């Protein structure tokens, strides 16, 4: 087994012996890339179906969302290819940069976001481009955790200790690393993203071999905090009802219950094969608010039925399977990154589809790759790229 680090005594050397792009064979995990691309392309069709009638009614281009989604896919693919070429050294650089960068973005939301009516999670860059720093924060946190764990372990090994099990100080340090963005996201308040961050962090902790009492303790802490938040009235009733659907700038006229009901109607009436593309009455009538983003799964449910829904879930299963395979084969840092990414995408997909199916509370989370939205698409493209990078070094 090769280590990702070429020279453990000079972990931050900025003069690599080889240029990063020259190293390694271009070995992409085709199944992983294929699954992600398939989801993104299915997403393009679903976003199109969800928006064409409404856009036409508003007098704007019916294909507008489709085109923008396709552009997002191209950009995300480029990001993936770029990220797949990172090696361990660059990863150690990349981690802190993404972490600090998205943390600054989260803070900027509080400054800039206050001037934008109703939008607390978004930064408007002008020209219709909006950035959601919390999407990149997920990536930054995962890589940051991985780098921190491995560097601490390696430092101990170099000092002659051979037990790689993370120590209490490691865990506490990582918890600081996790809790800063977690708190910022919760204050926004974007509870959906907070849940994803928490779940991904938990996955990394488990994979890092942290003692079971830590994991169990943190789980209990999370439950206690959740119970206190509910009982202590930290969350208003409407927040309980629809967690963070308010992170979206559009005014939610009829509330989350309405969204869920309408999505439920759409999916339930899809049946086995669905109504066919562009033939879903719920979708065409614009009955499901936020259908191109949070409720994009309901389009698949209505127009492609059980078959379409199954294909989407199956593609996520393939994606997770490839990701976990990469994790098993990877070295220390790579494994932690891979597990984190898989946990992130798996949980976010579960939360989003579960919300569409009335299984999970309504939170403003997009379905990875499928939902319309640049920030999440780019962040997830980078994530797949990281998985590929880990794969190539494995």
């Amino acid at each position, binding site marked *: *087994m*090769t*280590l990702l680090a070429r020279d*453990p005594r000079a972990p931050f050397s900025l003069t690599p012996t080889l240029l990063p792009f020259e190293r390694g064979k271009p070995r992409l995990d085709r199944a992983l890339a294929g699954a992600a691309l398939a989801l993104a392309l299915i997403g393009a069709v679903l976003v199109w179906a969800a928006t064409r009638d409404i856009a036409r009614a508003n007098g704007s281009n019916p294909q507008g969302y489709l085109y923008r989604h396709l552009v997002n896919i191209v950009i995300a693919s480029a990001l993936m290819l770029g990220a797949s070429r990172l090696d361990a050294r660059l990863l150690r650089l990349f981690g802190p940069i993404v972490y600090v960068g998205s943390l600054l973005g989260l803070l900027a939301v509080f400054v800039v976001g206050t001037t934008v*009516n*109703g939008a607390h999670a978004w930064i408007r860059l002008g020209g219709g481009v909006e950035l959601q720093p919390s999407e990149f924060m997920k990536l930054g946190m995962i890589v940051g955790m991985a780098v921190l764990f491995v560097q601490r372990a390696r430092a101990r090994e170099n000092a002659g200790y*051979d037990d790689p*099990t993370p120590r209490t100080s490691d865990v506490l340090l990582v918890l600081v690393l996790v809790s800063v963005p977690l708190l910022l996201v919760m204050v926004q308040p974007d509870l959906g993203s907070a849940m994803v961050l928490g779940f991904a962090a938990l*996955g990394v902790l*488990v*994979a890092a*071999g942290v003692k079971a009492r830590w994991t169990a303790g943190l789980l209990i802490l999370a439950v206690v905090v959740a119970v206190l938040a509910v009982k202590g009235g930290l969350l*208003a009733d*409407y927040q309980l009802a629809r967690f963070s659907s308010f992170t979206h700038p559009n*005014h*939610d*006229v*009829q509330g989350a219950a309405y969204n869920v*009901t*309408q999505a*439920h*109607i759409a999916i*339930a*009436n899809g*049946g*086995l094969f669905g109504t066919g593309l562009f033939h879903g*009455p*719920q979708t*065409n*009538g*614009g*009955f*499901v*608010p936020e259908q191109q983003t949070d409720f994009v799964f309901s389009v698949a*449910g209505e127009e492609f*039925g*059980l078959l379409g*829904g*199954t294909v989407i*879930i199956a593609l996520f*299963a393939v994606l*997770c399977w490839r990701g*976990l395979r990469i*994790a*098993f084969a990877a*070295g*220390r840092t790579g*494994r932690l990154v891979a*597990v984190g990414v*898989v*946990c992130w995408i*798996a*949980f976010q*997909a*579960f939360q989003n*589809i*579960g919300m569409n*199916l*009335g*299984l999970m509370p309504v939170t403003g989370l997009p379905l990875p790759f499928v939902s319309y939205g640049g920030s999440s698409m780019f962040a997830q493209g980078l994530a797949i790229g990281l998985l590929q990078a880990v794969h190539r070094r494995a």
Partner: protein
Amino acid sequence: MASRPLRADVSARRLSIVVALVAAMVITLFGRLYYVQLLDPHKPVQTAGSLHDGTIVVPAPRGEIVDARGNVLVGNTSQQVLTVSRDVLQALPDGGTAVLGKLSALLGTTPAQLSKEITPCSPKVPAPCWTGEPYTPVPVATNAPISVVLAVSEHREQFPGVELHTVTLPSYPGGTMAAHVLGYTGSVNATDEKANKALTDSDTVGRTGLEAQYDSVLRGIDGTQVVQLNPQGSVVGQGDDVLPVQGDTLVTSIDANVQRLAEQSLAQQIHDSRAKGMKATSGAVVVLDPQTGRVIAAASYPTYDPQLFVGGISNTAYAALTDPGANDPLLSRAIAGQYAPGSTFKLITSSSLVTHHEISLTGTYPCPGSLSIDGRVKTNFDSESFGSAMSLRQALGYSCDTFFYAPAAREYYTDQAKIALGKKASEYLQQTAAAFGVGRAPQIDLPAGEQASGSFADRETRMARWTANRAQYCADAKHGFPDEPNSAQRAYLTALATENCTDGWRYRAGDNADMAIGQGETTVSPLQLALAYSAMVNGGKMWEPTLGWAVVDGAGKVVRSINPKVHSTVPVSPKLFDYIADSLSFKLGWQVSGAFAYLNSPYRNEIGGKTGTAEVFGHQDTSWLATWGPVSRTPQGDIRARFVVVGMVEQAGTGARAAGPMLKRIWDGLLGAKGSPVIAGSRPATTLPQIAPQVRVATTNGSGGAPLAPREPVGPPEAPTYPPRTGGRR
């Protein structure tokens, strides 16, 4: 190092936890999807394809209140309201930024502020925000200045989503005239909506007076403008409009000319009395038609402007009205105030004493300067003494108090003797007072809280009150009144409490004597006194008086006639009433105390009146005068009068000094002593005025047309002219 990488076995085991978690999530989703799409026996019903309707309420203008000749007392005025449709703004390429910018400049606010005002309230949108339905156009400027209205209406293309609406609001062409009787209006609050589901936020409800009493008649039926909404709540189409129906017109028996005359005379008297050094804090005048029980005028001083309440009264204005220094201008003293009536009460005392044979019309009785009753000395006004015994006629005319003290005390001792024998006290004086309506609400068509019942003392209520308050009396007697700064007042209150503590239950001969001259605990409202005197000149009928006369619908048809009911007949013989009225006729000149101001009046022989000068502890005397006229005789020779006019000025001295001249000015107007009478033929109106049918104008949809035209053009408020009319409104 490469030989000992990670503890692969441990780490792999850890990874399998993650694998299991991911697998569980995938399986859960598959299962749920399968259930929702195929297995669920209760699939939700598809609602696609059906747009839902939203309703915008178009408030109905309130019905008018007119006087007995059709003059408008409460009308409607139209106001331009600027609204913004948020839907339209959001659909614009710039989200309405430009429109809000221009509009805020016109209105002198900021785009940010305006944007907040039109954003529907929600848990994450704090005030200022729009509390109505999200699809309803938001009013951003009520009573918009003409410049703004012109700017918007002439450049409509620059203001998409901005509309001009005309709303109607109550207006008062007479200003403060009859304010207490008409009452004021207010915006609907949560309590109202709970009580009446038909009310909406945009409605106006009557809060006091006739506006409150006849609110259901005046309110009308709100119109609706139906809009089709898509699932996002945006307006996508227009549905059918239902025009609002204006409320019915309430015709009252108030005569605007008499009302204004009464108010002017009252205000002038307050001024005159103050000029003579009296406090003259407040006053009231009531003009009744004793033959029908209808109220022709009811004036109170101080008064207020009901216009202040239109569209919601400001906190400052309300604080000013309720400030103690303002002396309660909202109180309708003519009907809701109650005061010691003084000698005007002698109508009731005389009726009681003669009816129960305690004195006779032929006998003469002493009128000493003072009289000792139950160990206390009671005097005439200014201790005036009339040497020889006098008849009831003279006693009424001169207003001798001691004349009435003696029989009242005698009645008391007779009752005490009955009680000693285990019988029930007769309490004739109290019985007669009750028969004349003292102690019960007059049942006028006003809210229950706006009509005073008056009061008098008797044995039973005295005992009940003592039982309830004894502990407090005794505590006060023990501690004194340390908070009272005035030492005389403190001593008086303490002495009173000491007496009440031990003997508060006791009804004394002095109490009965006090009641005989309308003092002590005896109080009446000016309206009640007018009703009592009406009975004297209408054959003994005690009316349940009315202000409303008829309700006329939009087509000009009378849908409801409002008529006073006879509550009861006073058990007093017509002969006695004639005797009392004749005794107080102003043609007797200086023999009648009330006549002093009228000695040179041409109509002196046609009217009569009784003065009252009520003493109130710690205050100057209350000046009363109850008058009736012009008198006529029935074929049986019984006395009748066309009007009863009662006036009262607090802290203004004797009845002859303040109330006398005050009512003289009213009689001058009523009977045309100086020019033509203010009321046609010097008679109350007997036929309802013609009310023109309401004109309804169709709502012009969308682009800011007037939802309603006011029923008739309302003149500027500074020009309310009520020329005497002989017929109805044409």
